[in-house]
């Protein structure tokens, strides 16, 4: 059974077809890259899958279950977590609290336990603290746990967003430009990081990225979008030599240098 199955997905904003007839099937353990020029509709696809937008047409199935129409928090609880193109942390909260917050749906104490600090509350909070610290340690952020999220350097904020989404215990992780604004050195570390978390947490990963070094290195399969439509898909090598893709990025008449 595919992890993610998107069929005939479309989204119109007024007369604009932001996404038109988008198809995607992902098997367990795959890393798929979604690329395309700015404004091609990549982030809109992510917003449709995670429930921020409601599709105009089409279906999204996750592990055999239709998820389009569910609110975002339900989709997350089913096992899809994401990061954002422009980082969206809980800025004023501590690094540790950013991660602990997302444990909420799996917390096993009630409001009364919290108000009266019952033994069940204490035991569960201890577990949450321990596991949250493990996620931070995996992303090399353990020594920053007491800092405010907004005070972290840019690269750490990117990693914290990943730590936070991992703490949702997703099966499918969606990364929206995880290497945006990074230098080649940092990009190659991000490639290693994504590989590491994929193995460690047994993830299927869908990512948008403009850094070609990253997608070509990391992804087994690429899907290229332009003007809301898929114009090509295949292995990185196939995409590299695809005439349609070159035209979309560089204009008509472009050839491989």
């Amino acid at each position, binding site marked *: 059974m595919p992890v993610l199955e998107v069929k005939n997905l479309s989204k119109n904003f007024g007369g604009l077809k932001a996404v038109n007839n988008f198809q995607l099937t992902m098997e367990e353990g795959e890393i798929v890259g979604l690329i395309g020029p700015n404004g091609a509709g990549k982030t809109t696809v992510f917003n449709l899958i995670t429930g921020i937008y409601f599709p105009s047409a089409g279906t999204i199935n996750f592990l055999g279950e239709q998820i389009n129409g569910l609110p975002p928090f339900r989709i997350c609880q089913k096992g899809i977590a994401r990061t954002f193109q422009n980082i969206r942390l809980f800025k004023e909260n501590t690094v540790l609290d950013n991660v*602990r917050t997302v444990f909420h749906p799996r917390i096993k104490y009630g409001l009364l336990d919290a108000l009266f600090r019952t033994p069940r509350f204490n035991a569960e909070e201890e577990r949450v603290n321990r596991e949250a610290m493990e996620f931070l340690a995996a992303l090399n952020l353990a020594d920053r746990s007491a800092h405010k999220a907004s005070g972290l350097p840019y690269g750490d904020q990117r990693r914290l967003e990943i730590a936070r989404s991992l703490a949702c215990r997703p099966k499918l992780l969606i990364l929206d430009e995880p290497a945006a604004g990074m230098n080649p050195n940092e990009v190659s570390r991000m490639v290693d990081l994504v590989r590491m978390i994929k193995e460690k947490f047994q993830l299927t990963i869908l990512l948008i990225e403009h850094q070609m070094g990253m997608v070509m290195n990391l992804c087994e399969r690429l899907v290229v979008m332009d003007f809301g439509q898929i114009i090509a898909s295949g292995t990185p090598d196939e995409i590299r030599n695809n005439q349609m893709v070159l035209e979309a990025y560089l204009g008509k008449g472009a050839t491989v240098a």
Partner: protein
Amino acid sequence: MKISRQTIMLLILAAAFFALVKGLQFAGVLNAYWQLVLDQALVTVIGALGLSLIYGFTGQFSLGHAAFYGLGAYTAGAIDIVYGNGNIIFFFVSILAGAALAGLVALLIGLPILRLRSDYLGIATLGFGIIVKVGMDNANKLIPVLGGATGMSGTPQTAHFDLIFILVLIIILLVRNFVFSTYGRACTSIREDEIAADIMGIDTTRFKVLAFVLGCSLAGLAGGIYAHRYPFLHPASFDFLKSFDFLLIVVLGGLGSMTGTIVTAIGWGFLMEVLRAVLGENFIDWRGVIYALILIVAIILRPQGLFSGKELGLLLPRPLQTGQGKERSHAGTGS
């Protein structure tokens, strides 16, 4: 049950404060008038902590907090006038009924409004505040005991400093326990970034409604206690200016700081009375101007509020042992 060192320290501090007040009473420094000011300031602490939950911790802007305060006051007062006879049991029954009614009304308002992702709550609660005020002015036409525009009197004055103080202490502990739990974390995540919270698995509508209902119940509870400590309830005590009082206290104290809310609520009560003493009869006329001036000066000098999201150590949970030394969580918005 394990009681943390922080809680014990907090209780010791509370006992010291209690002893100080008792000492002042004994020495005759604290006369009946200033005792009333102190008691009302403590009542305000409960109501302001309610708004702190709604606005300071969950980020939902409410302009009608005094309406819920008034609902609680009138409900508790009327129940005790009709059924009570100065018995302490009726004090508790009536203030809980006031809190429950305020919470129920908040639920009915919150469910439709809090689905929206904007400042609509501010507009809706502003309108609700006006409705409640008009309702109080005319309440005697339906229920004579409520007194209408001439005010309501006759509620047994069962509340006194000792009782109010213990209630305030309990409420502070409960609010602290709420804020430093998964519920509090869910609320602050909504304040920080509602879309991100939603995407990360938090049912944002549910927690906005929860914070709003709990916060308004606290306002109702405070109102009920107020009715038992001040013999005359008048609709003008629960109008927009009173809502503004609560809002000022929460903002001046620093959003996301219980310490700030508590200290400012008490300080505010005394400041107003000092101003009343200084300005005399003119105070009521100048009150609106004074409010605005204090707000402007405070925002210029200290935009993040007095405590800027920080807490007194006593109000924080036990520090975590993380291997990198001790650390503390905080739920505020300060830097």
